[in-house]
């Protein structure tokens, strides 16, 4: 009797388990896929974070909100560009809302922290938002963290050669003192030093600094140009003070330096801005058909009257690319996330992602190999300044063409060629 009872209990348990298994596998096909979306809706990058969310939503809209018969459900969270806040928000999405895929975060420090966290959650696939720290995928990478955008150093490839072609043999660097400008300067100098250029002087200034007079006083007489890697308001402040001090060296810009507020600059040096070179992952004036279609779609979905930007920002573009990768991967495996998402991750690693700016592939650390644009400031008929595409470099990888052993992550003193 006792044995019978035990047998009965076991068989019932077995039946229940079988039912759960079959039901689970069957239900997976019809159930929505939950995707967590994290961007900075607070703090210094609030405007950029909101545009990033627009970009990600655009990718979902283009697919009509479903992939391979499974509805896409987006759950949003916000941070303020601080790593601890980003991890708290991610933890909520992963452990409380139980998302299947996580897209985010936006800034570099956050990206490293979320990568560290992703190692403790092997059942979820993490795809980057817009964070661009080199260390995220170079230093101790996580097997379930994917990044389909290129980062700060990759964005500057091509600028060094273009500067040499313009005849700038010696350049002084003026950049903000944190990780993103380090990587930008590294991207520039790696190529520039290899081509025989010299960087005799580097000035690292605090973020949000107001007074550049001591830096301007340090500019050597014999440099041909200045590489200025400063964000929006800092760049304009520097330009104004440099003009007042009577400076006349031509400028090279970082990826976020020659933005619209610099192009709208009204000082006497406005004319000398013409010819300024910079580099980045996108160019407003690029005339590729896919890029134009993307811009048109963005402008139609988010008109300026509804809070959109006149043209998609870097954050919108990068979030769009990463969300598109998440959805394309889902399509490739027909919405199958079983087996701890093994097939899905396999598909992501092998995939050639079609982006508005050309194809992107991943390297062994799940980091994008993609396209960089070098742009040049020109004047149109009405006298407005805009960034024209100077050249386009495809297949830029994270090691910048170096071997793994000789590559060191950029810092104040790396690389150097005085």
């Amino acid at each position: 009797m006792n044995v019978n009872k035990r047998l009965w209990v076991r068989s019932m348990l077995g039946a229940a388990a079988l039912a759960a298994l079959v039901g689970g596998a069957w239900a997976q096909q019809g159930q929505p896929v939950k995707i967590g979306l994290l961007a900075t809706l607070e703090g210094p990058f609030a405007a950029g974070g909101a545009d990033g969310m627009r970009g990600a939503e655009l990718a979902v809209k283009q697919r009509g909100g479903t992939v391979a018969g499974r509805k896409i459900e987006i759950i949003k969270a916000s941070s303020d560009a601080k790593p601890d806040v980003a991890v708290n928000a991610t933890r909520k999405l992963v452990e409380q809302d139980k998302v299947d895929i996580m897209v985010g975060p936006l800034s570099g420090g956050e990206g490293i922290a979320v990568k560290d966290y992703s190692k403790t959650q092997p059942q979820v696939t993490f795809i980057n938002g817009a964070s661009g720290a080199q260390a995220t995928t170079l230093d101790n990478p996580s097997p379930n963290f994917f990044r389909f955008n290129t980062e700060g150093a990759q964005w500057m490839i091509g600028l060094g050669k273009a500067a040499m072609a313009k005849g700038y043999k010696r350049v002084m660097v003026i950049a903000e003192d944190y990780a993103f400008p380090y990587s930008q300067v590294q991207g520039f100098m790696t190529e520039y030093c290899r081509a025989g250029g010299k960087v005799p002087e580097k000035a690292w200034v605090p973020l949000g600094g107001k007074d550049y007079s001591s830096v301007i006083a340090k500019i050597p007489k014999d440099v041909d140009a200045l590489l200025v890697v400063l964000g929006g308001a800092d760049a304009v402040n520097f330009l104004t003070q440099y003009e007042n001090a009577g400076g006349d060296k031509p400028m090279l810009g970082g990826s976020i330096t020659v933005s619209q507020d610099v192009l709208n600059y009204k000082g006497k040096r406005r004319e000398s801005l013409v010819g300024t070179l910079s580099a980045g992952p996108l160019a407003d004036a690029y005339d590729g058909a896919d890029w134009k279609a993307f811009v048109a779609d963005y402008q139609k979905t988010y008109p300026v009257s509804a809070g959109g930007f006149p043209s998609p920002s870097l954050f919108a573009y990068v979030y769009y690319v990463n969300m598109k990768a998440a959805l394309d991967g889902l399509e490739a495996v027909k919405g199958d996330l079983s087996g701890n998402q093994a097939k899905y991750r396999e598909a992501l690693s092998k995939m050639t992602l079609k982006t508005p700016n050309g194809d992107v592939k991943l390297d062994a650390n799940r980091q994008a190999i993609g396209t960089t644009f070098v742009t040049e400031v020109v004047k149109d008929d009405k006298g407005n300044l805009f960034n024209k595409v100077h050249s386009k470099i495809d297949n830029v990888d994270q090691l910048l063409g170096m071997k793994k052993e000789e590559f060191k992550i950029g810092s104040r003193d790396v690389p150097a060629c005085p």
Partner: protein
Amino acid sequence: MSAAQWRRAMRSGPGAQALPLAPVAPAALPAPAPARLDWLAALRRTVRPHHLAVLVFVLVFPFVATPFITFQVAAQSLVLGLIALSLTFLGGYGGMVSLAQMTVAGIAGYALAVLGTSSSGADIAMRWPWWVAVPFALAIATLCATLIGWLSVRTEGIYTIMITLAIGVAFYYLVLQNYSVFNGFQGLREIYPPKVLGVAWRDPVPFYFLCLACAMAGYFLVRWVVRAPFGIALQGIRDNPRRMEALGYHVVAHRVAAYALAGLLAAVGGVLLVWYNGLITPGSVSISWLINILVVAVLGGMRHPMGAFLGAIVFVLLQTFAIDLIDRERFNLLIGGVFFAIVLFSPDGLLGLWAALRSRLGSRPGMTSNQRRQP
């Protein structure tokens, strides 16, 4: 009454709880064995059913709640509550509102990160074992808190707030711009609690109990100190420093000692906070966090040490779940609205609301503390 007599009166046994000034007859000095009975009786008198209910609740809670709630909501509330408790002690019982409590916690966190094991781009960590690094971190932070106190006790009221705010901001910019020790903007990461006794202390349930033990220790320490002669003298100094000085008390020494004790509480909270986040960056000691600690303390109510923890629970719940209740770009409005409503309707925070509710229902007099309202 002379200062010596006053001190003797303050030191006089359990009778001091209810009526601090009640004189105690010398004959009441009991023999050792009855003393234990006395102690038990006192325990039975102070422990009420609702204390036991709370104790059972906090012990059973992690086994009922999900790991997420246990770790992110409960453990984080306990850690923030502990840091806010240090401010409640300073502000409520010492009359000194210091905005630098989060800075002290951050100093402990940075000390632990630099002395213990952590990773960063530059090779900064000294990789001491945790049982050396943690005491050093606590000692360094307590020492810094003492120095902060020593600097700021010369000021009163709003000037104390100003000087502690200035110290906090200075520390923020120091860690933001120093790369050789604090690794600047990126800070230090991968700082986790050690594995001791075969328990991984970062797992939700063990970490919860670690935080609970520290929080309860801090809570009872404050409850005990404010009834000890030192705490009574501190409250006397809060209410009338000149009279206490005339009675022979060293006002500055008492205040600095209060800063040191509060610094120790904040330092323990800082170590736990670093373990909770797994990293420390300048963002953890930024102005917004200095103010958040004040918000937590005020939200809960400064009249009782429990307020710090209540405030922390409400604060963490709002931070975590507000985005689910209201559309994404507006969720900070909800957080601000709730804070505003609580402070508007009850200047004493949640504890004030609770006391008002109790007195409205009229069962017993509302929860009160032995402190006078600040002048």
